[in-house]
């Protein structure tokens, strides 16, 4: 490993507060991970000079599954449960852009009801994933109450998702042409109650975590990513938005029902861990708004199968009976061996951690020719290398937690 590289690059980027200097031979090298309580399934090799990290080398891949290769051997629709495994607590957000890419190649557009249903689940997932992130963030900084609270409250959202899809985490909900289930009868009422509960609850989160002086001093000014550097490194999601980048895939290229619902994309300009926490915090509020709007829309409009007519029109009467009784959308047997016309498509969606990009290429067979996935954590991993040096050892968990890095998602 050439030693000069990091220092030089660091000064190239002109990151404030970072110390760019040559690394001496007698530095302490500490292996954070993978069997370490302060890291997920990854390793960060840091070198410390006193308490200051001078060099960090993220070593990923401990939970790598070669999804891109596996997907080439599976039929189109079978890849949805596979890609879901990247971030099971954010399942709908992660897979919805793959489904959109397939729909783009097929040239179909899901009916409005399906789009709203997907949006609804996406936002439920987003809140659940943000709470998960908050929990991990909290426990990384020794705040166990935040961990327990957010995991307890995440249960509310998981419960809602379960009522909607029938599974707590791996929903496999979006499918080319639509969504797999309609709302249960009592869902709107429960969702509204949950929204009201969360509105009150977030205020308590702010008091015990974000405005807690101890936690605030831990987060303030830690892991600062200036706007220019954030764009240069190509970080995504809350990390980018905390640095003042006004980018959100829901904004840049509205998919599903995001061009019809009203919401804000919170942007902060400080770029530190505190701003990243606040972005997530404000995003939860916006997601609650979207859930309300989606539920209202779904309640107002007539129940019909959330499936593209191509896959629904010729369905036998039994299917309509099942849909009316259980809200379950039956799939055509041809779904298994769906043939996509040759073509290539790209789609992006905003997951809780940032934007996920799928590049899908079809050569007219039942399996993809190539699927390229770039998940948000994979793009944020570079933060470890370029932002962590210059901060203290105890800041590492803070930065790790604040960028909400999720190894299974990064490793794919």
């Amino acid at each position, binding site marked *: 490993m050439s030693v000069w590289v990091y220092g030089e690059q660091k000064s190239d980027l002109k990151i404030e507060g970072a110390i760019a200097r040559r690394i001496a031979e007698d530095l302490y090298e500490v292996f954070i991970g993978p069997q370490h309580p302060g890291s997920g399934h990854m390793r960060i090799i840091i070198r410390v000079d006193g308490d200051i990290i001078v060099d960090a080398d993220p070593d990923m891949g401990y939970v790598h599954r070669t999804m891109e290769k596996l997907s080439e051997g599976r039929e189109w629709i079978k890849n949805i449960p596979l890609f879901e495994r990247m971030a099971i607590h954010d399942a709908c957000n992660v897979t919805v852009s793959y489904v959109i890419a397939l729909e783009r190649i097929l040239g179909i557009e899901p009916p409005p009801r399906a789009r709203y249903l997907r949006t609804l689940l996406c936002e439920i997932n987003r809140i659940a994933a943000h709470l998960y992130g908050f929990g991990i963030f909290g426990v990384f900084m*020794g*705040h*166990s109450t935040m961990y327990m609270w957010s995991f307890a409250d995440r249960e509310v959202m998981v419960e809602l998702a379960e009522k909607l899809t029938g599974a707590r985490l791996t929903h496999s909900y979006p499918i080319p042409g639509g969504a797999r289930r309609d709302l249960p009868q009592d869902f709107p009422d429960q969702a509204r109650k949950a929204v009201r509960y969360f509105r009150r609850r977030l205020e308590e989160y702010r008091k015990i975590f974000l405005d*807690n002086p101890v936690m605030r001093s831990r987060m303030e000014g830690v892991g600062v990513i200036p706007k220019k550097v954030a764009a240069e490194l190509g970080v995504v999601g809350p990390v980018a938005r905390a640095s003042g980048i006004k980018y959100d895939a829901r904004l840049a290229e509205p998919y599903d029902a995001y061009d019809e619902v009203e919401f804000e994309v919170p942007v902060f300009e400080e770029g530190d861990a505190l701003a990243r926490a606040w972005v997530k915090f404000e995003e939860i509020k916006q997601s609650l708004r979207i859930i309300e709007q989606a539920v209202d829309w779904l309640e107002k409009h007539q129940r019909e199968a959330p499936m593209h007519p191509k896959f629904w029109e010729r369905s036998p009467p039994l299917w309509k009976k099942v849909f009316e009784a259980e809200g379950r959308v039956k799939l055509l047997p041809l779904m298994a061996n769906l043939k996509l016309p040759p073509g290539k498509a790209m789609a992006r969606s905003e997951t809780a951690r940032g934007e996920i990009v799928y590049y899908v290429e079809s050569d007219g067979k039942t399996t993809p020719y190539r699927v390229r996935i770039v998940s948000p954590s994979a793009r944020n991993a570079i933060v470890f290398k370029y932002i962590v040096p210059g901060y203290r050892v*105890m800041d590492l968990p803070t930065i790790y937690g604040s960028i909400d890095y999720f190894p299974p998602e990064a490793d794919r």
Partner: protein
Amino acid sequence: MDVVKLILDIIFYPPIYQLLLIGLVGSLVVVIFILWFERKATARVQRRLGPYHVAPRVAGFPQLVADLVRYAFQEVIIPRTVDAGIFILAPIVATILSILPIAVVPLTSNPGYWPVPMDYSVLVALAISTVSPIFLILAGWASNNKFSIIGGVREAFVITAYELIAILSILAASATVLSFNFVDVVEAQSRIWFIILNPLAFLAAFLAVLMATSGFPFEIPESENEVVAGPFTEYSGLLYGLNMGAAYMKRFALSILMALAFLGGWAPYTPGEGILSGYLIPSIIVIAKATVLMMAFSFTRSVYGRFRLDQALDGAWRLVFPMAILGFGLALLEAYLGVV
């Protein structure tokens, strides 16, 4: 009856009573209670159940006993790379030293039950309480592990900063009465406790003891997210349990000192003659006050997170240290004015 009296005399012979009964057995019981309370209270704040399945009828009270049994029967692994002698001795000595301060403080005003002559008891107790961290640092050093050494160094930093403050602010109490005798300190509080007369010193002592005894989440030296278990990374089984217990025992000892110095010791009660009235009841009052103090320490766990090392030191030198100095000044002023 002479036999009973003899046994009682032996039991309540101050060194035995205070070192063995309160120091070992009492502190174990208090630690069991405090750990249970800590777990239960945190669980309530965190909307959990806490310990339960060990004994559902008593809300999981013997959880720590179960833990200790587990520790006791676990294999003690001594890695080949460690300095075995120090590695084994350090936690044992640290544990003994951390309960030793209890043996030199008076738990009653009845001179018949003082363990040692009292004239310099404040100084002696505080002096003993400062020895045990050295062995934790030693444990970290002997472990020959990067995390242990980082943890040991952190321990050294934190202890240097906060132990000084703890001592200074407990000394403020003796400055008020112009005596190093704990009995004088306690008796001066029969009318009004020093926590009211000198809240600054109490607050400084509270924070300092909280940080110096490194209970979660103020365990910067052994903060698990960076340094796994700090100085104790290589420890296992009973030795690990001792390490963990030492911190709580030290907290208990310091809490007793604080109870004597600020919470009036056995204050509402006037010790009389005889074992019961002269020794047992006042000592139980002191322990009860110390336990309440420890409950307050434990509660902070559910509200706060961990400080960063440099912030903790910064806070110590810039905020808590001046606070302790001010408290000391206030104590001197009160002594000058003759408030007590």
